[in-house]
């Protein structure tokens, strides 16, 4: 598992803690062998974690025959020092001599941990196996994910059925609260965005249409485009970014803190209490927000028309009524609940899938938003073809 949070902690520090005056370092000398015995390796200075980093590199290069490790001149020792002395004595088959009581105790404690030298790294396959392995896992995950989304939708629908049979279990307050979060609180940003997009469409459209002397068709362009396509599409994207991500992060965190499990044990169905209000709220609010967005888009177009095209504001609005067929409004409104379902479903599904850690909440939230926006755009294309075919062109 490679991830940013992980890299932040295991990557070497570019700016290690500020360098200052020297700290005392451990050192060692080697007395060469005399007669039949091996040499003596003599440590000096403090043997603690802060003093051993450099000397350890040199110790690993020692290849003389050593029969005794002398620690008489060691001022202080901690477990890292004890570990190094112990490791060296095992590796060189040498005896530890002149050891003080406390150091002896440490070395004994360390030696007890040194029974099995298993690899502490997580096992990792070689690259040539890892790539197909990962690809295979990904393909299976996509297929399983698709089935699970369908299953999740089924759960939500069956929970809906339960609610219809037992209306008292319906969480009205939660629904209203979610409607406020998804819809009412989004009014400002959706309105501003739509107004500006309306201005841009009118301005760019007018520039092109002027070449045919057909600026008056700017009104048709703005009216039909915002009501049919842009209003609902941009709103769905905005709601996916605002609320779909929030659903995923909320539910994911609740999963991590076992709140969802606690709920289940109390007899509250998480699908009924958490998922359903969010899905319903989004399905109700998205068409409304979409219509609101279209209206603001038209107002933006009318504003530009009155400022730079010489079409009076109210004339622009009344022309809209004449040139935009009523089925354009229905096209926009029909798509609303469908897009709402997709956005909320993606957010809730991804949130409920969180199992392991904080990082997963982040990646799940990202895929909830990406998946929602992608599906919304693909479906929008299908809708465009469909409505043209049935004569609502």
């Amino acid at each position: 598992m490679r991830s940013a949070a992980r890299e932040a902690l295991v990557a070497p520090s570019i700016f290690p803690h500020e360098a200052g005056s020297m700290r005392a370092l451990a050192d060692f000398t080697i007395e060469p062998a005399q007669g039949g015995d091996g040499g003596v390796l003599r440590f000096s200075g403090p043997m603690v974690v802060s003093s051993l980093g450099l000397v350890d590199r040199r110790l690993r290069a020692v290849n003389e025959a050593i029969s005794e490790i002398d620690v008489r001149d060691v001022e202080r020792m901690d477990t890292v020092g004890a570990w190094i002395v112990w490791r060296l004595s095992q590796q060189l088959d040498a005896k530890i001599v002149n050891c003080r009581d406390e150091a002896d105790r440490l070395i004994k404690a360390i030696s007890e941990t040194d029974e099995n030298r298993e690899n502490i790294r997580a096992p990792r396959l070689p690259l040539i196996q890892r790539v197909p392995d990962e690809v295979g896992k990904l393909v299976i995950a996509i297929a399983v994910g698709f089935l699970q989304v369908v299953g999740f939708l089924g759960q939500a629908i069956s929970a809906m059925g339960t609610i219809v049979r037992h209306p008292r279990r319906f969480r009205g307050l939660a629904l209203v609260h979610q409607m406020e979060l998804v819809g009412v609180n989004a009014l400002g940003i959706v309105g501003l965005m739509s107004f500006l997009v309306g201005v841009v469409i009118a301005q760019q459209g007018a520039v092109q249409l002027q070449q045919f002397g057909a600026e008056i068709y700017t009104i048709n362009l703005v009216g039909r485009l915002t009501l049919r396509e842009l209003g609902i599409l941009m709103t769905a994207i905005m709601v996916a970014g605002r609320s779909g991500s929030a659903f995923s992060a909320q539910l994911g965190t609740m999963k991590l803190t076992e709140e969802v499990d606690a709920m289940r044990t109390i007899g509250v169905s998480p699908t009924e209490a958490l998922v359903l209000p969010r899905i319903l709220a989004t399905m109700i609010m998205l068409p409304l927000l979409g219509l609101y967005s279209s209206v603001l888009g038209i107002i933006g177009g009318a504003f530009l028309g009155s400022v730079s095209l010489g079409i009076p504001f109210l004339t622009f609005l009344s022309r809209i009524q004449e040139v935009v067929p009523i089925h354009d409004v229905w096209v926009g409104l029909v798509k609303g609940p469908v897009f709402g379902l997709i956005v909320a479903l993606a957010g809730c599904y991804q949130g409920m899938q969180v199992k392991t850690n904080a990082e997963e909440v982040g990646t799940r939230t990202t895929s909830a938003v990406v998946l929602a926006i992608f599906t919304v755009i693909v479906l929008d294309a299908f809708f465009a073809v469909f409505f043209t075919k049935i004569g609502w062109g």
Partner: protein
Amino acid sequence: MDHSEARLADMPEEFEGDYPIRVRGLVNRFDDHVIHEGLDLDVKRGEIIGVVGGSGTGKSVLMRSIIGLQIPAEGSIEVLGRSITDARDDEDIDIRSQWGILFQGGALFSTLTVAENVEVPLREFYPEISEELRHEIARYKVLLSGLPANATSKYPAELSGGMKKRAGLARALALDPELLFLDEPTAGLDPIGAAAFDNLIRGLQETLGLTVFLITHDLDTLYEICDRVAVLADRKVIAVGTIPELLALDHPWIQEYFNGPRGRAAKDAQDREAASVVQATQDAATSPMEQE
């Protein structure tokens, strides 16, 4: 040598005083809610001090104040001779390499394996340590904290609650600190696991000469391993001492705490153990005579 010696960070000199933790006149409040008011506490070098108190008396807040996570409203705190309360930002607290902290839930980094968790402080403070040595250190620390060797490559999500605590302890011990802070180390462990954890802490404390600041509700832990106990009540430390000393005091909360059914059970358990030790030594002393 690829690491120039100038890269080595300056280390604060070894602490020589008798009281590694000194708290004077500590005041902590959240809005209008006063947690501590004029709290004083001295922790002696090389002791295990247990901190007890009812829920909400601010045991964890006290620990967070001492380690600089909570900025107190008033008062002064000295740790290893350095003032924590005068530190203006995190960089000023340069004794972090000399303390280790075990948080209640372990607070392991969830994206790293147990061994990598232990290596984080080593990387941070001693970049000159080679990767090889760092792995070796992580491995023996994990084993020292009582986990099996195969736990080193596991992620925190794969560990049980007790194993998380041990892994957290291994990380707290990563830098061979002088001071160890433990927030309810035995809470949530089964009695056998809790007793083993107590022994582990006592053993490590004796071998490494640690000073341990231990928050607990576990009366067995208090009787078994604490040298002294500090009692938090009425926004202060109302008493510090050994358990017999505390029992001699006439404070209703202390009496209820230690003489309640659980307190008596813990005391009985310790008495039995002491008696069996005495019995065993007597047996050992008398048996050779009988043989003769």
